[in-house]
């Protein structure tokens, strides 16, 4: 399997362990990634707040770069997925609008073509379940995550709005994390926050609202007995992991729950050592996860 790969900004910024663990995990799975190193930021919904046409054109450029490779496109960030799907919906809705946007791409020799053969843009989570397949994933597992209790945390932009995100065709997209955790041999922890918002988008604007969301979800997962959370979104990771000590102050309780990126969780089951997956870079210690995996009997 060969894919055009858009890693996004944050996986090369404050969550480099995500970029690294994706490279490791893709190799173990036998997925070849062709990185779109000339592509630009998705705008994270913020550029659209300033100028919607600008956001649409920037993402049309990324799609056009992916289409040039003739490969399907993969992202590793729920926020990229959401922002890009939103722009793609508008681009696909109207041929005159699409032609107008393509005018701006013509100078770079690029064009976004609606419905081009083989072109899709999917988050690693969707790709793993829908295209790679959970059975094939199961065959690759060398260290089942037995005894590890994992709370799923999706990130808003891969669960809502359902109408835009392909839920008609793939109605179980908001259950995939649970399915992956189970295939990897882990135990799914049910808690209130799995499909709620991490609060990251307002961390600069209303720090308290933002961190109260993150702290509440981490606390709920701890109360439900989770050993760790797993997320396909690096922005969620920033609020749930990097800001976790600050969130603990806002919700006024001890936290301390490891938050894994999805490729890290998969990588562990594929035999990687935590250090290879950059888990030592996390703010919330991942030691407990390592101990659990070393001696599942203590569960």
């Amino acid at each position, binding site marked *: 399997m060969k894919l055009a790969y858009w890693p996004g900004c944050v996986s090369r910024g404050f969550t480099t*362990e995500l970029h690294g663990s994706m490279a490791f995990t893709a190799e173990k799975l036998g997925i070849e990634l062709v990185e779109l190193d000339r*592509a630009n930021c998705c705008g994270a919904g913020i550029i659209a707040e300033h100028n919607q046409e600008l956001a649409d054109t920037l993402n049309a450029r990324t799609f056009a770069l992916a289409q040039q490779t003739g490969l399907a496109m993969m992202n590793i960030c729920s926020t990229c997925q959401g922002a890009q799907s939103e722009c793609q919906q508008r681009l696909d809705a109207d041929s005159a609008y*699409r032609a107008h946007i393509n005018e701006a791409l013509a100078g770079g020799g690029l064009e976004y073509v609606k419905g081009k053969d083989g072109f899709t843009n999917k988050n690693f989570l969707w790709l793993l379940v829908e295209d790679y397949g959970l059975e094939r994933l199961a065959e690759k597992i060398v260290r089942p995550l037995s005894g590890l209790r994992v709370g799923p945390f999706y990130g808003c932009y891969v669960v809502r709005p359902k109408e835009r995100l392909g839920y008609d065709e793939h109605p179980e997209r908001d259950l995939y994390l649970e399915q992956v955790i189970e295939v990897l041999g882990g135990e799914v922890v049910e808690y209130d926050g799995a499909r709620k918002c991490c609060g*990251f988008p307002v961390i600069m604007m209303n720090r308290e609202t933002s961190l109260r969301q993150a702290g509440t979800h981490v606390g709920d997962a701890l109360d439900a007995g989770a050993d760790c959370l797993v997320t396909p979104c690096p922005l969620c990771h920033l609020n749930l992991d990097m800001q976790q000590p600050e969130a603990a102050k806002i919700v006024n309780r001890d936290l301390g729950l490891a938050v894994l990126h999805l490729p890290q969780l998969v990588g562990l089951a594929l035999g990687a050592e935590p250090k290879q997956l950059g888990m030592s870079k996390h*703010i919330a210690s991942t030691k407990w996860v390592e101990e659990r995996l070393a001696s599942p009997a203590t569960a």
Partner: protein
Amino acid sequence: MAEYTLKVRRYQPESGAGAYWEEFKVELDPSLSVLDGLLQAKDRDDGSLSVRCSCRAAICGSCGMKINGQSGLGCKTQIGEAQHQADRRPSPDSATPIVIEPMGNMPVIKDLITDMESTHWTKIRRVTPWLLPHGEPPEREYAVEPESMIDITQSMACIQCGACVSSCLSMEADPDFIGPAALAKAYRFVGDPRDAETKERLHDLAHDPHGIYDCTHCFSCVDACPKGVAPMDQIMRLRRKAVEEEVDDDPNNGYNHVTAFVRMIEKKGTNDEALLVQESYALGWKGKLKPSMRAIKGLLESLPTVLRAIKTGKARSPAKVIPGIHPKLPGGAQGEVRAIYKHAEQHREEFNIYIEGEEDVEPEPDETETEETTA
């Protein structure tokens, strides 16, 4: 006909007891609504089961409730579909019930009846939901071109059911958040060509710490709304207008954050996190503006997080801690991005699918550009 189990969150204040769950068995056609199911339970099993309803046709907006955790209207949700949703995560024991709760983010008066006044209507009144024209009133009505009102038809479709308020994840964390229904209503007047206090309205909503910059973009209200209002989209329009109208001094860093982000991508193509943090607190700090006390406080607050990230190695490279040295896109790609900025800033087209609709003819994958432009 099929049999369903409704698991209803009940609260009877006169009993003195707390809220509790009760299951009702109902029998009806899958195409009928969850509200029909509740009314059958009320009719046959327990007349005290309380629910607000009137039109039963998604017009009056009375029967807002949570069905399997999803906020919406009881009359607009088919019971067969609700069962299908419930079955996606089956309970280990017997048949999976359809779970019905009162709306969230507001006090419960009785069973499924919530207090709309204390939350919803108070917030609606907060945004001055009436027209504020200037000058002498015209002799007859205020006449405007029909086209100039199209932009606000989406926000005018609101039926005040409160489903979006019930679903709002920001309000869960900050009960003072003005919220999706009231802000969508605010856009209805901000976008109205007859209103003369657009800038004052935007200034008010941008400066309020619980205003337009308190929305986290979670899309909950978009999925909850039974009328396609997409309240979050209206909040984003308010933010767009606030930046356009140069409401640039809000204490929430809203204007700074958007402006810094947009400028940064034009210069670098991807996110320079160190620069974004600095500029969001104090836009154009480098030699242009003096940082305010608020900006210094914000930067100091983020310092422990940055120090921790340096310690673990998360942010150990110079580009991650020194603003502005993040690399541009390679090999002329940055020039392509700048060209896109030039084109898009000149046109600023705002395509709204709610208004324009989607073309029903699917173009062939190999359709040529000439055909596209003439379509």
